[in-house]
C-alpha cells in the first residue's frame, strides 16, 4: 500500500511538473518547432470562415491566421485550421491545441477574465441589428412596438433584444429557434415581423433571401460585438506576434501598401515608416523574434486590411457590407482601425 501511494505521489508530481512546463513554454517557439500555426475557427460562417467547393477555407478570420503564418514562416499555407464547437473554443486554446482563436469571438469582460484567454485586437466591429420586410414601411427599430422577432435561443442576441425592448418600452415578442436555417426560413415565410442577428449575419441572410430587395436592414445597432483574436493568457511574446501582424495589415493600408505594390514599395519607397514596416531599415523584427521581412510577407501573401475586408465581406462579396462610415474604416476615415506606431 505504501509503495502504491508513493507511486501515486510520484505520478502526480510528474503530471504537475509536466503541466507547469507546458504553461511556461512559449507558444512562438512551439509554433516554430511544429512548423505550422494552429488556428481555431468555428464550423462555418459566410464571409468569416467557410469552405469553398475545393475544400479550402476562406474568409476574414482565415486570412488573419494566414497572415500570422506568413509573419512567422513567410508562407501563408503553414497554418492548420481547427474547426471547433462553441463549447470547445476556450478549452482548445487553454489546452494548447490551438495557438490563436480567430472565430468571430466577441470580446466581453467575462470572457477576457474568466476563460484563461487574452483578447488582443478587434478586426471587425459588429453589432446586433434588425431586418424587416420592406413593405412594412418601418424605418427604425423604435417603430417595432409589439412586433414579433425571430431570434436564436441561447445567444447574446436574445439577451440584448430583451434588454433593448425593456429599456425602450417596445414590448417585443421573441420567437426563438435553435437552428439558424429554420429561423431564416420562418422569417422569409412571414412567421415573424423582424429578424435579429449581428449585422454581418443579417447581410448574409439577406443575400440568401428569395428576393433580397424586399428586405431592409434597419439603421440601429443595439449591441457591441467586437470580433477579436484571443490567445492563451500570459504569453506576451506570442501575443505580440499576433497583435503586430494585424497592426502591420492596418498600417499597410494606411501607408498605401498593398499586395500588388508591396514589391515595388520595398524597392523604391523613400518613406521611413514604409521602409521600417517592410523591414528595409531598422530592426523592429528583433523584438518580435520574427524574420526581418515578416511584415512584407504578410502584405505580399495576404494583403493589407482593406484588401482582406473587401475580399471577404466588402461590397462585392456575398455579405456586401459597405465599409465607409463604419467603425471598420481606417481612423483617417473616421473609423476605429488604428495601428500603433511602427517605431
Amino acid at each position, binding site marked *: 500500500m505504501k509503495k502504491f501511494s508513493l507511486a501515486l505521489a510520484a505520478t502526480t508530481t510528474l*503530471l504537475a511538473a*509536466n*503541466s507547469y512546463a*507546458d504553461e511556461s513554454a512559449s507558444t512562438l517557439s512551439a509554433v516554430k518547432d511544429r512548423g505550422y500555426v494552429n488556428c481555431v475557427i468555428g*464550423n*462555418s*460562417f*459566410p*464571409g468569416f470562415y*467557410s*469552405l*469553398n*467547393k*475545393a*475544400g*479550402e477555407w*476562406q474568409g476574414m478570420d482565415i486570412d488573419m491566421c494566414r497572415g500570422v503564418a506568413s509573419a512567422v514562416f513567410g508562407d501563408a499555407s503553414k497554418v*492548420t485550421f*481547427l*474547426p*471547433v*464547437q462553441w*463549447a*470547445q473554443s476556450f*478549452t482548445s486554446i487553454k*489546452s*494548447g*491545441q490551438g495557438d490563436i482563436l480567430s472565430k468571430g469571438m466577441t470580446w466581453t469582460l467575462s470572457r477576457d477574465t474568466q476563460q484563461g484567454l487574452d483578447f488582443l485586437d478587434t478586426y471587425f466591429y459588429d453589432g446586433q441589428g434588425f431586418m424587416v420586410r420592406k413593405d412594412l414601411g418601418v424605418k427604425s427599430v423604435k417603430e417595432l412596438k409589439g412586433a414579433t422577432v425571430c431570434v436564436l435561443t441561447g445567444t447574446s442576441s436574445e439577451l440584448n433584444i430583451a434588454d433593448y425592448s425593456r429599456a425602450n418600452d417596445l414590448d417585443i415578442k421573441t420567437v426563438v429557434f435553435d437552428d439558424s*436555417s429554420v429561423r*431564416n426560413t420562418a422569417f422569409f415565410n412571414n412567421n415573424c415581423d423582424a429578424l435579429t442577428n449581428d449585422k454581418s449575419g443579417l447581410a*448574409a*441572410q439577406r*443575400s*440568401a*433571401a*428569395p*428576393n433580397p430587395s424586399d428586405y431592409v436592414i434597419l439603421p440601429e445597432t443595439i449591441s457591441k460585438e467586437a470580433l477579436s483574436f484571443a490567445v492563451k493568457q500570459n504569453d506576451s511574446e506570442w501575443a505580440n506576434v499576433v497583435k503586430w501582424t494585424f497592426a502591420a495589415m492596418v498600417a499597410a493600408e494606411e501607408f498605401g501598401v498593398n499586395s500588388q505594390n508591396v514589391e515595388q514599395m520595398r524597392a523604391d519607397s523613400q518613406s521611413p515608416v514604409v521602409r521600417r514596416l517592410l523591414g528595409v531599415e531598422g530592426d523592429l523584427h528583433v523584438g518580435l523574434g520574427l524574420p526581418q521581412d515578416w511584415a512584407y510577407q504578410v502584405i505580399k501573401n495576404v494583403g493589407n486590411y482593406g484588401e482582406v475586408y473587401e475580399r471577404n465581406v466588402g461590397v462585392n*462579396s*456575398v455579405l456586401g457590407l459597405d465599409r465607409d462610415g463604419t467603425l471598420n474604416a481606417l481612423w483617417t476615415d473616421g473609423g476605429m482601425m488604428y495601428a500603433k506606431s511602427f517605431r
Partner: protein
Amino acid sequence: MDDLNVKNPPALKQFIPTPPRPPRQSKSGIFGTIRQRCFNSIGNSVLTLCVVAVLFYLVKHVLDWAVFNAVFIADNRRQCMDISPDGACWAGVISWFNGLIYGRFPVDEQWRVNVGVLLGLVWLLPLMSKRIPLRNVILLSWIGLYPFVGAYLFLGGRFGAELGWIHGVMTCLALAFLTIIYVNWILSALGKKGLNELFVPLVSRFVERRIHLLSFVAVWLLIALVMALVLNQVSLEPVAIERWGGLFLTFIIASFAITMAIPIGVVLALGRRSKLPVIHWLSMTVIELVRSVPLITVLFMAVTLLPIFLPADVEFNKLAQVLVAVCIFAGAYMAENIRGGLQAIPKGQYEAAATLGLGYLHTMALIILPQALRMMIPNIMTSFISLLKDTTLVSIIGLFDIMLMARNIANDKDWVGMHTEPLVMISVLFFLFCYSMSQYSLTLEKRLKVDR
C-alpha cells in the same frame, strides 16, 4: 360400444364434408382487380379516392420541386432563384458533388481515393465466388493487410518514408497477396496449378514438412520484393488526415467499425458468459457502460476530454480517437446481439462438442459461434445499418464527413442559405446504401439458410 352409439347423436357418426368453396372469381384484367380490391364498397371507394388524392398531391409537389421547377445549371444560388424561385437548385449540389464525396481531399489527388476504394472492393470480390477455396483467409487478409494499402494511397508521401518502413513492408506484402489471389483465380479457371505451388519442387529438396506453406511464403516474399522495387520509384503528394472527408470518411469510419465490431463483440459476449468472475464482470462493465451512454457523448469524451487528461505532447489525431470510440461502441452493441445468438444454441450442442473431446476454443470456433452468428444475421445487419447512419454524428465534433460537407454548402459564398437540397441528396445516398445492405443481408440469409 353399443352404449356409446346410443349416447352419441347419430349425425356425428359419419363425416359430412362441407362443400368446397368455389374458387375466387377473378375478373380478368387489371381493372377488374382494382375494382374488386379498392372499390368493393362505398366506404372503401371513398377511402381509395382520398388516398389517391393525397398521393397525387404529395407526388405532384415533390416532383414539381425536385424535377420540373428545378434548376440544374447555374453559377450560384442567386441565379437559381432568378430562373425558378420555387424549385430545387441542384446546380449547387452538382457543383459541390466532389466535395460531398471526397470532402476536403485535394482535387488533383482524388483519383487515389477512387483507386483505394476500388482495390478494397476488388480484394473482396473473390468472396462472391463459391469456387475459390480458403475464402476466410481472403477475408482475414483484407482485414489485416488492406488497411496498409489504403492508408498509403490516402495519406501519400514518399514510399516507406513518411509512414515508416514497417508500413512500407506491409504494403508490399499486401499488394503481393492480392496479386497471388488474382493470379491463382485465373490459373484455377484455366485448370492449372496455383502460383503458390511454383516453388514446391525446389522447397521439397530442402525440407520435408510444410512444403506447400513454405512454397507459398517464398512466392509471396518474392512478389513482395518486386512490388517494393516498383513502389520505391513512386512518390505521392502527402495528404493530411484533416483533409479526409465527405462520403469517403463516412465509409472509412463505418467500414472500420463494421469490421472491428464482430471481433470485439465476440470477445465481449464470450467474456460476459464466462465463468471466471474477473472476465465476466469486466466484459459486463464495458458492455453496460458503453451501451448506457449515447454515441455523441462517447465521441465528445474521446475528442474533448482525452486531450485534457493526457500530457500536452501526446497528440492523437481526431480520426483515431473517433475510430476507437466508434469501434468500442459498435462492439458493445454487437456483443449483446451475439450473446442472444449464443443463448439460442441448445445445450446439446455443447455436450456433443464435449463428447467429441473438443476444448473451449474449438467448441466455440467450430460449433457454437458459426451457428450463433448465422442465426443473428438479421440483427447484426440491423446494427451495421444503424452504425452507418450513426457515423453522421461525427460531423458534430468537426470531422468533415458527408453531413458536415452538406451543411457547409449553405455557408459557401456562392450558395449561401442552401440547406434543403444537400440534405435531400444525402438522404437519397444513404437510402441507397442502407437498402442495398439490407438486400445483401437477405441474400446472405438465403445462402446460409438461416431459417433451417
